[in-house]
């Protein structure tokens, strides 16, 4: 009789159950699996399971030459392909101490910023869709198409460009490039107001995101959350400002910093960053100097033995490339510090105590790209 009385009484209110969000789920934006412990609708904790799209890019790099590696970096964060290419190119150029023509630096900076706008546009579409506003998706894609058309004309492809090569660019820009970029900026300055009308100013959206998924500055730093998500918490981490590359020093732009660190602030960061990117492009587009589109490089690129690290500001945060070279034409070890992996690590911390719907909104505001997490 005594045993029966002492049996642990399960409180139904406190019982947890688990659901698998993913690998096939509309709001994980790819094959990410989140094992979520729920109590009713409230998230108690979650465990991200990565690796569903792991392709071993870092290992593959050890067999490839440096120009070949650039093609692999496209496939990591496919939405900021140019910026990923830029990181590897800069690393090789700095290691070999090659002086890149000024024209190349200008074009790379402009194209990077265009890529950043395109990436943020796609984030905006999918964030709207995560909140249930499906119309946003089509607004964003409509405008992203304009950028992709510019890319297609100049670089020959729309998503995975591999346009940068160590020492310069694969080919010079198309004669129409400057005019089309200027037209696009003019067009998008008008259209971004539509974005504000349909989503930024919507009271339902404000209620859904304000005070949801708060990440303090200390937590952002300790989790290594960078990019717009980190800056929303007040963590000044813009590589373009702190370790300038390209011609960012010559452009006049602000590092957007937030304070609240909630989903709404992360949203506003990206909306402001798109405007800031347009400002950078406007300053540079008319001043592209004439010159060669690539520096003279050796036919076989061999990095001197040693360790190298290069960071760039990708659309989602700081992308670091770490190379250990033994003097051969391919690296001895290559490691990418991908922004999405670090940002994802904070998801559990941010979403505890939220509802399922909040989890989707927080995930949308972190803007993770799964191939970049798994590599």
């Amino acid at each position, binding site marked *: 009789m005594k045993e029966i009385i002492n049996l642990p009484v399960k409180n139904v209110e406190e019982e947890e*159950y688990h*659901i698998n969000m993913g690998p096939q789920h*509309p709001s994980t934006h790819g094959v990410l699996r989140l094992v979520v412990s729920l109590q009713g609708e409230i998230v108690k904790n979650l465990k991200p399971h990565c690796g569903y799209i792991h392709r071993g890019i870092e290992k593959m790099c050890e067999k490839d030459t440096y120009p070949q590696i650039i093609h692999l970096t496209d496939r990591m964060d496919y939405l900021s392909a140019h910026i990923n290419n830029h990181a590897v190119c800069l690393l090789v150029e700095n290691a070999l101490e090659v002086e890149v023509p000024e024209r190349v630096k200008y074009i790379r900076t402009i194209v990077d910023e265009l890529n950043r706008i395109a990436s943020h546009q796609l984030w905006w579409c999918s964030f709207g869709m995560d909140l249930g506003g499906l119309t946003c*998706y089509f607004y964003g894609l409509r405008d992203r198409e304009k950028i992709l058309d510019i890319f297609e004309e100049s670089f020959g492809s729309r998503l995975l460009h591999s346009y940068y090569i160590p020492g310069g660019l694969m080919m010079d820009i198309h004669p129409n490039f400057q005019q089309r970029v200027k037209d696009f900026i003019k067009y998008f300055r008008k259209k971004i107001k539509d974005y504000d009308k349909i*989503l930024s100013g919507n009271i339902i959206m404000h209620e*859904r995101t304000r005070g949801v998924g708060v990440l303090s500055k200390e937590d952002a730093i300790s989790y290594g959350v960078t990019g717009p998500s980190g800056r929303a918490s007040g963590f000044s981490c813009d590589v373009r400002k702190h370790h300038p590359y390209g011609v960012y020093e010559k452009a006049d732009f602000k590092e957007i910093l937030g304070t609240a660190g909630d989903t709404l602030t992360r949203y506003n960061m990206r909306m402001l960053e798109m405007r800031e990117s347009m400002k950078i492009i406007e300053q540079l587009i008319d001043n592209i100097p004439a010159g060669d589109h690539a520096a003279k490089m050796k036919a076989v690129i061999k990095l001197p033995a040693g360790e190298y690290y290069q960071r760039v500001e990708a659309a989602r945060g700081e992308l670091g490339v770490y190379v250990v070279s033994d003097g051969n034409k391919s690296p001895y070890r290559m490691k990418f510090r991908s922004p999405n992996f670090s940002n994802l690590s904070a998801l559990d911390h941010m979403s505890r105590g939220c509802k399922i719907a909040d989890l989707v909104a927080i995930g949308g505001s972190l803007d993770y790209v799964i191939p970049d997490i798994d590599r």
Partner: protein
Amino acid sequence: MNFSIYDFTSFTQWIDKFLYDNLPAFWAVTVEMVIIGLLVLLFYALVGLFLVYAERKVCAFMQNRIGPNRVGPYGFFQTIADLFKLLMKELVYIKNADKLLFNIAPFIVIIASFMAIAAIPFAKGLHAIDFDIGVLYVIAVSSLGVIGILLAGWSSNNKYSLIGAMRSGAQIVSYELSVGLSLVTIIILAGTMQFSAIVEGQANGWFIFKGHIPAFIAFIIFLIASTAETNRGPFDLAEAESELTAGFHTEYSGIKFAFFFLAEYMNMFIVASIAATVFLGGWMPFHVGGWEGFNHIMDFIPPFVWYIGKTFFVIWVMMWFKWTFPRLRIDQLLTLEWKYLLPINLVNILIMAFIVLMGWHF
């Protein structure tokens, strides 16, 4: 018999008299039931198909798209092609699902919306049953559908379905109140619950204009609450495809899924037609006092056209805000109902009662 598209009363009475003259009373009633049942079925299927098409076109236009445009002129037969696809699809049976409840759920949902359609007046003398408690009947019957949704979620053996069903239960039970109370506001003004009498009462002005501001507030509340009750628009938490993949009908396939789908659209139609009947004068033409010529032209348009026009206007408004707003969260949804809509509604009823008491309405 004199048939006219302005008044169906003589036509229906002629059929009724013809049947009773030639058949025993029992068979006459049976034949009438079968005829009406078939007509309602046909109407149901046609309107359902058209609404799916309309939604796809409306949302396409709001999203810079063209929408269906391949099958038939302007893609008009797209939904019929879709229906055939759904009919031919395999019905997937779920392991460890409660088979009986799983199979019965879509029927409960669809029967609830069938029953509601019986009481709606489409034109003068054109309705299946003219209850003297028509409004109460429609409210009662349309809320039966939630049982089907709850059963579907419960029996699917899927946690997403269960979450969706529980959300839907909380949502419909709450918003049922606002739907009922906003209709009560108009019942006070009309003094009757019979649909035909409510429509007749709007011969010299629709209730939304007659009832001053309280009627207008009631109309807005009815629109919000009924959208929530049909699981649509910004209140589609039960399906919430970005959170729960497809909510309560995740595990359904083929024609069973089509039942849920059709019932959702028909519920929207029913809700819109109640809004049109109670607030916008049903099949009554639009009249402006003193403008004889204008009123005469308005009278020339058949009542059925007036009814369909008003209903589709309300449906269009509902589609409009479905494709504009993001989705609410479950706690915000309940806050909206219990903290805002319900108190406003209760005060609104008092104001309306006061206006009717003092005879201040038109």
